C-alpha cells in the first residue's frame, strides 16, 4: 500500500525550504501567544489549565495550526503535481492508484503531525505555567495526530476532485467549522475540529469546567474513522477517474 519512492519524492516536494520555513513559522504562533500569556503573569482571571485547554490548544492549535497545516500539506501532496503537469510521471507507472494515494497521505500526515506537535507541545507546557495539566498536553498531542490524519485524507481527496481544493478547504475551515458549527450545534458531527477536540476531551483527565468538548470521545473517534475511510475511498476513486487536462 505504500511505495518508498513515492514517499521519498513527496517528502522532497513538500518539504521545500520555503514551505517548511513558512509552516514552522506558523507553528510558532500558538507558542508565542502562550509565552505572552505566561509573561502577563496575571493568572487569577484565567486559570492556566482552562486557558491552555480552551485557548492555546483548543482554539489556536486545533482551530488554527492543525487545519491550515493539513490544508497546505494535504492539498499540495498531489495537487501541485496536477498543477505543474508532473503527475503524469507518477500516473504512467504500473502502480495501483491506491498506493499513490496512501503514500501521499502518509507524507502529508507525517508533515502535518510534526508541525502541529511543534505548536501543541511547547504552547501547552508554557500555558500551564508549571501547573499539573491532568495530561492535557499528552491528550491534545494524541488528538492532533488523529485530527491530522482525518484532515489530510479529506484535503487530499479534495485536491484530486477539484482544482480549487485550497479555496474549498479554506471555506470548510473558516465558514463551516468556524461559523456554521458554532451557530448550529447539530452539524458538529461534520466537523473534524470537533472530532479532534472530542478525542482530546476523552483522553484528558480534567473537569468539564476546564474543558468540555461538544462530542463524546467514542463518538468523535468513530466519526473521525468514518470520515477518514470515506475520504480515502473517494480519493482512490477520484484518482482512478482522473483525466489529463487539455493544457497538460
Amino acid at each position, binding site marked *: 500500500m505504500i511505495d518508498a519512492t513515492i514517499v521519498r519524492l513527496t517528502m*522532497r516536494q513538500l518539504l521545500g525550504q520555503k514551505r517548511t520555513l513558512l509552516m514552522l513559522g506558523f507553528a510558532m504562533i500558538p507558542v508565542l501567544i502562550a509565552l505572552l500569556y505566561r509573561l502577563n503573569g496575571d493568572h487569577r482571571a484565567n486559570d492556566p489549565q482552562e486557558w491552555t485547554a480552551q485557548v492555546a490548544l483548543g482554539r489556536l492549535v486545533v482551530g488554527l495550526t492543525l487545519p491550515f497545516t493539513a490544508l497546505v500539506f494535504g492539498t499540495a501532496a498531489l495537487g501541485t503535481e496536477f498543477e505543474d503537469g508532473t503527475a503524469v510521471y507518477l500516473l504512467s507507472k504500473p*502502480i495501483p492508484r491506491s498506493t499513490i494515494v496512501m503514500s501521499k497521505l502518509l507524507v502529508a500526515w507525517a508533515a502535518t503531525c510534526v508541525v502541529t506537535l511543534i505548536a501543541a507541545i511547547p504552547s501547552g507546557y508554557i500555558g500551564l505555567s508549571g501547573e499539573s495539566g491532568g495530561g492535557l498536553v499528552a491528550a491534545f498531542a494524541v488528538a492532533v495526530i488523529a485530527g491530522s490524519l482525518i484532515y489530510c485524507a479529506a484535503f487530499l481527496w479534495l485536491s484530486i476532485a477539484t482544482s480549487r481544493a485550497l479555496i474549498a478547504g479554506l471555506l470548510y475551515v473558516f465558514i463551516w467549522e468556524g461559523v456554521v458549527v458554532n451557530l448550529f450545534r447539530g452539524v458538529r458531527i461534520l466537523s473534524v475540529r470537533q472530532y479532534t477536540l472530542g478525542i482530546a476531551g476523552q483522553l484528558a483527565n480534567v473537569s468539564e469546567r476546564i474543558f468540555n468538548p461538544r462530542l463524546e470521545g467514542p463518538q468523535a473517534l468513530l466519526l473521525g474513522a468514518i470520515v477518514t475511510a470515506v475520504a480515502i475511498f473517494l480519493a482512490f476513486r477520484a484518482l482512478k477517474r482522473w483525466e489529463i487536462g487539455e*493544457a*497538460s
Partner: protein
Amino acid sequence: MTEPGAPPAIECDHVSRWYGNIVAVNDISFSLRAGITGLLGPNGAGKSTMLHMLAGFLQPSAGAVRVLGQPAWGNPEMYRQVGLVPEREAVYPFLTGYEFVLDSARLHHLPDPEDATLRAIRMVELEDAMGRATGGYSKGMKQRIKIAAALVHEPTVLLLDEPFNGADPRQRLHLMSLLREMAAAGKTIVFSSHILEEVERLAEEVLVIVSGRLAASGDFREIRRLMTDRPHTFTVRASDNRRLAASLVADPSVYGVELQGSELQVRTSEFAAFTMAVAGVARRSGVTIFEMRPTDESLESVFSYLVKR
C-alpha cells in the same frame, strides 16, 4: 515486440471524445503495428487528445482504445509495456536528471534500476548533465531526460507528444535515429507533430488528424503525393506578365492564369510538372521571372484539402 501476424499493438475502434458540446476527436478508427507512426495535424486538431486516449489518460466518450490487447483506460498495468513522453516541459525541478530517471526505474520496480537508469541516460546522450538538477535544464535537455525516463523500462509501445519541441537540430537527428533503432527492434512508436517535415523524416505510417477527424492514414509517401498533387496556386512576378500568362496558359499543367496588378496568379493541378516546366516556358517567351512563390502552402491548407477529399 509485436510479431508479424500478431494482433495490432494499438487499436482504436470508432473512438470519439467530446468536452461538453465540443467534439475533440470524432469517430476515429485505426490499428498500428511495430514501426513509427506520426500523428500529424495542425495545432488544436485533436492530436494530443488522441495521444492521451492512447496513453490511458483520457476516457473515450465513445468507442474503445486497446494497447497490446488491453484497454488503455483505467489500466495502470498497461504501463509495464508502455512509455509516455508528455508534451509539457515540467519535470521535478529539485531532482537531478539521474534521480528523475532512477525514480522512474524504481516506480517500474526494475530489478537493477541503477543500471537501467545509466543505460537510458546514455541513450539520450545526457551523461554529462545527469548530476545537475533538472530545474536548470534547457528545454531540449528536459525533453531528452523525459525520453530517458520513458525508455528506462524498455517499453514495447512508446508514445511521444511533440517530442522534438525545443531540441536543437543535432539533438533532433539523434532522437530520430534513436527512435528508428527502436522501431527496427520491433517497438511501436507513435509521436505527434504539427510539423510536416518532422513526420516526413521519421514516420513510416502517418495518421493525419484535422478538426478531430482522421483525414488520411497509411503510408506516408502516398499521403505526401496526395498533398503534392492537389491543385496549387502560384504567385509569379515577371518582366512581362502578360506575355508569360499567354505562354503558361498553353502548358498542359496549367489550368488557369489571372493577371492581378503587377502579379500573375497561376493555377496548376500538377505541382511537380508545373515547377519543372515554368522556367522553360519563360525562357522560350523571352521573359525573366523575378519571383515565384506558392500562395497556399500553409499546412492548414494542405490539411483542409485532405479533409475535403
